[in-house]
């Protein structure tokens, strides 16, 4: 499907208007484009203004300067009902909806489409059940919201936004309160929706791993620097992520794509079977070693299979380990 710009911002200033005509500027100048069929992840530390940006893009709060265009039309020219048909949101706000069923909540997504009394027509029912299907929660249609897990609630809110039939979906930290599997499930779901229904999906998150793994595009927002955007891998390779996360006691590891502590790194060579060496590398990193290409100057590890690991020490002696645990023991006892 053709990827089109659905939302763009030019020289956008975000922040709050205070009393007496003063302004608290959070970011003075943002230039952004959101594409259809893509999942865009907005990353930033607490206080970087992620929520403020999302709120401004959804017109929940006014911008301080600049322009936002949605589907090529300035956001301020939208009536409220037009906007509710164009941008749908999933928020972190606590709801009061424990006493209605999953179906009833998703049917609230039809509000912009229904009449004065909110009566559902046959077409609305079709769209609601399609939305329930798309997030895989149809079997819980008649369950009360209060009886759902956090992950299921999030799916229901996403189904609501699908029933709203907006081309743009904005989600504020959709994975924040979820366990690991639900996080991945939600991200896979959002990817699927972007690809299959050509939605533009913008979400803020603190899950760096997931953003790198699942995001088509990352927006890196910080207080003092201009917004960086790009495909995750490009941002890793050109050191943008490394400088973005630079902070005392934390480094972004370009090889693994993970944040870790900057201990003194002793190089250890790793080679062999891909799977075993990948996880051997993971264990070595945790222990403060630096997995490297094998060399005669330092200890190297040759992974034959998960149960057969050969350790060549720098002095020429060779040891054998049958698990990663044993390998680590050999290293701490014999290295140097």
């Amino acid at each position, binding site marked *: 499907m053709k990827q089109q710009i659905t939302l763009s911002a030019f020289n956008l200033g975000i922040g709050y208007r205070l009393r007496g005509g003063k302004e608290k500027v959070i970011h003075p100048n943002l230039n952004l484009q959101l594409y259809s069929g893509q999942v865009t992840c907005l990353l930033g530390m607490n206080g970087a203004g992620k929520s403020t940006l999302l709120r401004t893009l959804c017109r929940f709060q006014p911008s301080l300067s600049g322009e936002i265009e949605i589907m090529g039309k300035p956001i301020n020219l939208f009536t409220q009902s037009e906007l*509710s048909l164009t*941008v749908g949101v999933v928020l972190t706000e606590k709801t009061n909806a*424990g*006493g209605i069923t999953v179906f009833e909540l998703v049917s*609230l997504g039809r*509000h912009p489409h229904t009449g004065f*009394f*909110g009566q559902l027509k046959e077409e609305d029912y079709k769209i609601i059940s399609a939305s329930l299907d798309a997030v895989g929660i149809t079997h819980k249609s008649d369950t009360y919201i*209060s009886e759902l897990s956090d992950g299921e609630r999030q799916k229901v809110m996403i189904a609501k936004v699908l029933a709203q039939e907006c081309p743009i979906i904005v989600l504020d930290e959709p994975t924040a309160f979820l366990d690991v599997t639900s996080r991945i499930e939600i991200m896979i779901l959002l990817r699927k929706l972007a690809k299959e229904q050509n939605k533009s999906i913008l979400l803020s998150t603190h899950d760096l791993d997931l953003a790198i793994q699942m995001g088509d595009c990352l927006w890196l927002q910080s207080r003092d620097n201009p917004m960086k955007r790009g495909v995750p891998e490009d941002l890793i390779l050109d050191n943008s992520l490394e400088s973005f996360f630079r902070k005392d006691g934390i480094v972004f590891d370009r090889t693994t794509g993970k944040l870790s502590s900057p201990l003194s790194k002793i190089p250890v060579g790793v080679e062999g079977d891909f799977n075993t060496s990948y996880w051997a590398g993971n264990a070595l990193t945790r222990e403060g070693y630096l997995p490297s290409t094998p060399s005669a100057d330092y200890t190297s590890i040759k992974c034959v299979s998960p149960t057969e690991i050969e350790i060549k020490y720098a002095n020429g002696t060779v040891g054998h380990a049958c698990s990663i645990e044993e390998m680590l023991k050999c290293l701490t006892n014999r290295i140097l």
Partner: protein
Amino acid sequence: MKKQIFLGIILLLLFACNLAYGSLSIPLKSVIEILFGSFEGKQTWAQIVLQSRLPQAVTALLAGSSLAISGLLLQTLFKNPLAGPSILGISDGANLGVAIAMIYFSVGSYVTTILSAFAGAAVVLIIIIYFSKKVQNNVMFLIIGIMMGYLASSVISILNYHASADKVHQYVMWGMGDFSGVSLEKLPYFASFAIAGLILSLLLIKPLNALLLGETYAANLGVKIKSTRILILLCTGLLTATATAFCGPISFIGLAVPHIARLTLGSSNHKQLVPVTILAGGCVALLCNLLTVVPGSNSVLPLNAITPIIGAPIIIYVIVNRKNIQYFN
């Protein structure tokens, strides 16, 4: 739908009981004859049934529904299941409005009484809204409401202190709260205000449901938050003021009935909840009115002695069981 019909039947039964039973005992057969106009016995009996019991039952029905709906609207608007017109001090505001009108301006007409009650309720509502922005915590917010009520009551006490004895007496009698104050002549005024408020509440069903998700979600669903909030508050103020102006401040019905309605219905969906709350409010008020009649004597208990006996246990029940009640979670 079954539950609505069931409630409707209970409502009719309670209404009939209110006509048949009172401090003066009149045989059921005579009551039926009086209602169908074929009674040829004591004229005083006919007068009691038609001039006193009938308007009183209609008043109880409408006042109960009005207070219950204003409680429901406040609970949804403030996302606080323990909000209600009396706990947030809105009834006391209406009360204060009436006190000022009665004691200082010697006003007796129904419309001015309603208007002054409405003005009092509106002032408290505006102050409450101001605080709802400042105080996010549900319990703290309720305490502010209770404080508003105390403030209004103390102003009333100060007014009473300076007023003449007969005016104070008139006001105190009104303040006991009862459904008998609306005579057949006053009934059309009372009924038209109450019914207007109830119809307005039915028109608010769609935005009320969106508000279950919170104001930001509701705005994203196309609800015009500002005007909706004004309409909800107008409706609440009108209903509380009307009930208070004619029947005096009545406690607990506004707070407890929405819970009865949600628990019997098993849903917070306003499409069913608003009509069921109207029915349940009528039922509870009619029941309370029946219970004010002391058996075997011709005296009547004040209404506010009965409403807490029904309302307070319900509120304690929902608070204790809130972990297992869907709409609390």
